[in-house]
């Protein structure tokens, strides 16, 4: 690693001020799992690291109206274990549980992972399917973005120099909904996903037709993705196996995977179809259980 100026401000405003002062030359750091690794590989040489670790107030999991709000400094492990999340959005808690290893989950933070924008990560997949929004702050300013608009490219986000993510808020699922997350790991259990899929299915009150289905995809493009083509197959339809298969096939069109050691682009495209069907099937079953009032 190169020598850099390390700052650990005790308030968010102070942190934002330093970030603004250094602009492009500064990097915000929280858990550091991704950033320190890239620093050690000497891929990054920032003049200043602004640690958010001592910034108070960003590490809460709280219920807001109709949503759960995760502070940016909540670790993956905290999110995985948070009673509120397990109760209101179990699919998201489960997603965090599937990230890397417990050590990494103890370090990596919710906000840091989103800012890192690695398309192979798990949480963005489920957060996309759940329609999460990110809260962004900069010195003297704040804005909010749908998560989908945060991701701009491979490891690239819409964050401007001086901006940090302070929280992500995740709407609760409507009644008669089910959700699922599938991480396809053909090599070893500690690997990144070859394909990751999160699905939500919301049924009409009749419990038959699908009002809305949302699908998030990971490891199959330059960013985490939604699958509009697959979702369009399902909205307003009576679900059955063939329709779910059609949705899986449609999802192929929305992905543009990179070939890597977890699979060729062609294989990942095929597995997208398979995993979308599996994820939808689970979400659909959960939704039907919800309709029947079974927990």
């Amino acid at each position, binding site marked *: *690693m*190169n020598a850099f100026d390390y700052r650990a401000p005790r308030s968010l405003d102070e942190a934002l001020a330093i970030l603004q002062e250094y602009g492009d030359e500064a990097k915000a750091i929280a858990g550091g799992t991704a950033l320190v690794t890239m620093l050690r*590989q*000497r891929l990054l040489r920032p003049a200043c690291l602004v640690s958010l670790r001592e910034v108070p107030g960003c590490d809460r999991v709280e219920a807001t109206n109709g949503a759960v709000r995760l502070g940016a400094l909540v670790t993956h492990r905290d999110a995985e274990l948070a009673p509120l999340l397990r109760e209101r959005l179990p699919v998201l808690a489960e997603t965090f549980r599937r990230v890397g290893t417990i050590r990494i989950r103890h370090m990596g933070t919710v906000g840091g992972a989103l800012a890192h924008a690695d398309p192979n990560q798990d949480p963005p997949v489920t957060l996309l399917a759940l329609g999460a929004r990110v809260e962004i702050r900069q010195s003297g300013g704040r804005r909010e973005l749908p998560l989908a608009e945060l991701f701009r490219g491979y490891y690239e986000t819409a964050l401007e120099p001086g901006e940090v993510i302070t929280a992500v808020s995740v709407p609760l699922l409507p009644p008669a909904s089910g959700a699922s997350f599938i991480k*396809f790991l*053909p*090599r*070893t*259990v*500690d*690997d*990144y996903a*070859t394909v990751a899929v999160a699905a939500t299915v919301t049924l009409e009150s009749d419990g038959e037709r699908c009002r809305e289905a949302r699908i998030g995809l990971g490891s199959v493009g330059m960013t985490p993705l939604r699958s509009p083509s697959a979702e369009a197959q399902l909205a307003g339809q009576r679900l059955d196996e063939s329709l779910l298969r059609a949705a899986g096939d449609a999802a192929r069109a929305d992905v543009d995977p990179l070939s*890597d*050691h977890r*699979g*060729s682009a062609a*294989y990942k495209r*095929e*597995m997208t179809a*398979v995993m979308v069907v599996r994820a939808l099937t689970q979400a659909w079953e959960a939704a039907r259980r919800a309709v029947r009032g079974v927990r």
Partner: protein
Amino acid sequence: MAHRIVGQPIGRLDGIEKVSGATRYSADVTLPGLVWGKVLRSPLPHARIIRIDTAMARALPGVLAVLTARDLPDVLVGRRMFDMPVLARDRVRFIGEKVAVAAALDPDIADEALALIDVEYEDLPAVVDAAAAIEDGAPLVHENPGAYEGAPPERPHPNVQSVLRFALGDVEAGFREADRIFEHTFRTQLAHHGYLEPHAGVVAIDHDGRVQVWASNKMPFRLKELLAHALQLPKGQIRVNLTPIGGDFGGKGSLMDLPLAYHLARVTGRPVKMVMSYAEELMAGNPRHPSIITVRTGVTNDGRIVARRVRALFNAGAYAAFKPAPSVNLGGAGMGAGVYRIPHLAIESLCVYTHSIPCGHARSPGEPQMVFAGESHMDMIAKELGLDPAEFRRRNLLADGDRLANGHHLEHGRAKETLEAALKASDWSREKPGPWIGRGVAMTHRHIGVGFTNAHVRLESKGTVALVIGLPDTGTGAHLVLRQIVAEVLDLSLDEVQVELATTDTFETDSGVGGSRVTHTGGRAAYHAAEKLKEQIRAEAEKVGTPGASFATIAQAAARDGRTLEASYFYDARAHAAVTSFTAQVAEVAVDPQTGQVTVRRFTTAHDVGTIINPLGHQGQIEGGLIQGLGFALSEELGTEDGRISTLSLGDFKLPTVADIPPLTTVLLEDLVGPGPFRAKAIGEGSISAVAPAIANAVADACGVRILDLPITAEKVYFALREKPA
């Protein structure tokens, strides 16, 4: 015969240091004034070095020295064939070859210095594919390899490092006897050993010019010789201090960065530590040779093998320097014969130069490659003959008196018993529990290692015994085994025997750790030394005249007239015994037809063993080797693109985790016929080689697709299933 201590499942007595973090490995050695060395590596597979400018690097604060080949003596290094420069002189031959080295106050500064070194290269045409490398007109990796010290004479093509042959009978005549002939070609991947301790070493030069070395090296005495050669110093000036090794698996027998550490120490006047990063390990360690293996077998209609020809092409990379065998090849090539009676056999193994990472020895060198090919081939033939794979094997298994590829006539062979034991324990003949589930069997056998070891035992005044040994601990628990042997012979308790680590000053020589040899050679040396001491003690006891006098009394009696009771033994076994150890393994797998994912549901491993000196360590060897075999079968592959390794971290090169291991059944068939102490055999390399073919055969049984190249990824199975005629 019954033993007191031999045969007991005793926990590691060196354990307290290891479980409390007190054990000092090479990377943990710290000395006053110690500085760090880091290496700059070639980004190109083949290029001429036009110019190296180190001025900016040397000017960086905290940097003590920057060296290039110009600053070093013009010597080539190696373990057997000396073809590799310490730093690239005029040419680089693989991506990752060392071109310069920097010493600095901390590793980050040294790293920073490397980025400031300016190297101008002229690209040269490269060949990274083994088959392409031995075509006419292929770019030459070395101008005249035959001229290198230790180069084998035979060289059909200038890009051939070495040729190794095994032959029995008349293979052409044999094929004429065959009713049917089958030929298949298999490929295995480039794979790192996966030890979690990257190569590390510390070199310090004493005031008197004595060179002190601490290194993750399993052959300290050979290391001393090789260093003397590389540094052009008299052997006596070098002292290698034994340090515990954080995993070897065949990979820790070379000089690696030690000559550089020495030269930096020489120039800076400071002790120098060099520790490879894991990325460096994966880019420039000395991994297992990838292979292309063609097996051609002639059989009679009743399923008897009459002839076999095997041609193995190993991509050995840019240098032969990491291979220690006199053949500069892989002894495992002999396993092309498998565990079968093959009257007419011809095996040819070529190690080929390419502009890629130089390969070395890895646990049972060459065997996992050959056994994957041979045992997959056996199942493919059985299928064609309409025979149960186990039955086809039964009809051809080696029996006593049959000739092995190495010319020996097998003795005490228990191939059949081992196979039957594995079949029984794995419910081979039972119906499979469901669809898309399959079972596969594979076998291998391995000689008991040979070599030479010194042992010295000394009776201490308090009546205990010190065992002085020059074998470092690579993790197998060998030192405990040796203590058990000495305690057994001298009728002492384990606590009454201490292991005292030698340095390379203590003994003249020692073949070190490797090749499933330690329990045999170290054990026999310790055994005979202890026997000699026992005799002295008996004689001394008679002199003292008090029958049943304690060892302490005896030691003190001897001490009174200035004598110490001690004995040395040099055990030297050069030729392999005609006894080997058979292994039979059965994998039961499930294949997901939608994804091709292979799940090993259960695994059975059966071994024909000698006296087991420490059952805990023995089982540990079986389990560790087996899971390495599992990784080799399913997930471990160093990806390459134009000679560049693309899996540069353990995040991409995937070793199995604790959550990836299958339920395991082990069957041990003891037969007290080994050449080792108390008739022990060897186990260290017995469990790794048959795992991949057992799984490949199980996959074929489960879903009808035959994977011919390792690793068996879900993707390969998926696409094979799709192409398979319904």
